[in-house]
């Protein structure tokens, strides 16, 4: 899938275009093309694209507050995208990040609601671990279905997305609803459950955790036997199996790991931003995370850049919506166009090489 795996080394070396250039040029070309198509969409609605983009830019980077907002938005995308990077390297197409995020939020949220009087370090650790556990458990359903019954993880993780959101909706309206409350949401979490923030800013521990996973995933993929196995399964499953790699175990790990990070993102977001459980706690991180992993070329550093860029697009589109009334759904369309352009640029580069 990524050219490192699909283009034989000999071909890559023979070509005139260095691989690192293709790797970084394709996303840039894609970004320009995506923004251009976005400009056409804005123009079609009668607004001025340059003005709209200027609003987006200042909305995402206009000051410390805006930059903080963008960083906060980037961290769940980064976590989900990093998890998916490991899974996609093994060609395990977990597109259930959304459901795993919800389950992480739910399990972690239950700890936050019922264990608020625990000592704070213990409470926070238990909360985050419960979030991880929720995400892992939800992803493992898909893993078992795939390994035992050969069911495509694409379909199972996707169906589980819808189911997870409905489970959350039910819990927030039913068993976990705030006593005496009218809205379909839980009671607010106690102050002790908020993740600590750094130096009086709004940047919290969750952002730090997300950033820490960049080197962790890098090390996992390229300096551990497990990472080697994941990449081997991804580049050619039959060969990996022949070489004695336990393919099923790799698939299990790929789903569990990506589920863990999505679940972690879920509990971090509800702990720091929403501070209660309800159905509306995600901005489509599951799918945006897929795009982030793809745009970041399934490389942790690329994913970090991509998640920051997408976060800027989302935050920018929100302020564009406030200022000029243009729908912020534009951000999703632009993100997808960018990735489509990158796929095209990649494929073109591959054809020229061969």
């Amino acid at each position, binding site marked *: 899938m990524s050219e490192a795996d699909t283009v034989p080394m000999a071909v890559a070396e023979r070509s005139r275009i260095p691989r690192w250039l293709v790797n970084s040029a394709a996303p840039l070309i894609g970004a320009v093309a995506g923004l251009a198509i976005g400009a056409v969409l804005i123009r079609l609605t009668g607004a001025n694209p340059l003005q709209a983009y200027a609003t987006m830019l200042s909305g995402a980077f206009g000051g410390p507050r805006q930059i903080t907002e963008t960083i906060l938005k980037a961290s769940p995308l980064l976590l989900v995208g990093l998890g998916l990077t490991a899974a996609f390297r093994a060609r395990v*197409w977990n597109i259930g990040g959304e459901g795993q995020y919800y389950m992480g939020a739910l399990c972690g949220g239950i700890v936050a609601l019922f264990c608020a009087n625990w000592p704070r370090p213990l409470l926070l650790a238990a909360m985050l671990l419960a979030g991880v556990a929720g995400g892992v458990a939800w992803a493992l359903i898909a893993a078992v279905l795939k390994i035992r019954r050969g069911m495509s993880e694409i*379909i199972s993780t996707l169906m589980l997305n819808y189911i997870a959101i409905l489970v959350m909706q039910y819990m927030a309206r039913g068993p976990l609803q705030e006593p005496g409350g009218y809205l379909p949401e839980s009671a607010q979490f106690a102050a002790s459950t908020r993740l600590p923030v750094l130096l009086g800013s709004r940047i919290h521990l969750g952002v730090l955790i997300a950033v820490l996973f960049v080197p962790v995933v890098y090390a996992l993929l390229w300096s551990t036997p497990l990472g080697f196995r994941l990449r081997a399964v991804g580049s050619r499953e039959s060969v990996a199996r022949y070489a004695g790699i336990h393919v099923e175990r790799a698939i299990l790990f790929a789903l569990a790991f990506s589920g863990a990070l999505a679940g972690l993102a879920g509990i971090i977001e509800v702990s720091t931003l929403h501070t209660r459980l309800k159905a509306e706690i995600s901005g489509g991180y599951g799918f945006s995370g897929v795009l982030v992993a793809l745009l970041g070329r399934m490389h942790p550093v690329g994913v970090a850049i991509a998640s920051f860029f997408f976060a800027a697009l989302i935050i920018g589109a929100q302020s564009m919506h406030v200022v000029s009334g243009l729908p912020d759904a534009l951000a*999703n369309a632009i993100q*997808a166009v960018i990735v489509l352009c990158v*796929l095209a640029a990649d494929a073109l580069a591959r054809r020229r090489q061969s």
Partner: protein
Amino acid sequence: MDWKLVLNWAFVTALVTAGIRLAIPVLLAVLGETVTERAGVLNLGLEGVMAVGAVTGFLVAFLLQKGPLGAWSSWAGLLAGMAAGMAMGLILSVLSISLKADQVICGVTLVVFGQGLANYVYRQASSSLTARVPGMQPVPIPLLSRIPVLGGILFTHDPTVYLTVALVYLVWLFLFRTNWGLSIRAVGENPAAAETSGLNVNAIRYAATLIGTALAGLGGAVLTVVQLRMFREGITGGRGWIAVALVIFARWQPKLALVGALLFGLADSVQYRIQALSQVERGMRTVPYEFLLMLPYVLTILALLYRSNRSDAPAALGRAYDKSAD
């Protein structure tokens, strides 16, 4: 739960009638994807294709309803949905057939693109979120519709239901009894051999993908123009993904696709009916409505659990055809 409210003729009749209706958008997408996959192209973008078809169809029907073409606005909407679906199919074809990009990745990205585009266009074009279109009246089939019970269930539907059911037979005829169908299947099973015997593999795959996305776009349009008569974000509700699953369930056979889609339609209908009933009957409130809403998704997983054997899949499914590679 009070079973007397559920186990009576009026309820069951209404349930099955609605189930058939609700099966139609999914059935169209399944039929389309069956053609596409038979040619070896995996289009995972159905959910996005349906969303774009749904919004295009709805807006065209909405804008035309007050004009001189008002009487034809629904049909125009359905055609527009097909055309929009084909436009999406063209994007996918260029990427995954001509440029040979990974079909799984292209499909998933196409879903996000389609949903983002649909939501953007709708919110931009329609200032009021309560916009409605007239929809289509049921056309009872003479004589047949007067058969007791069955007449109401099977022969009192809007035209899209009859046309789609006829399409099941037509797609089967097309795939298994025409030369075109033979070419499509040949290209999906063994593209190299097909090429040797003089077929243009990529052209046939383009055609099959466009047919598939036209039907998926139509399915989306039927949903908004004829059935729900409105558009909102996420209105396709996973139907495109369910269609992808049902193609596997139906073993790439149009006739089994009908069975799969009806199963989905019935689950959806059970969910709607019990919800509606629990609004008025306290005895029905034992099951939280969220669990009813889960039914179609759970059923899809169960359906694949029952039949997840892929040995019937076209042999070259999901792989781009590369002449130099063989």
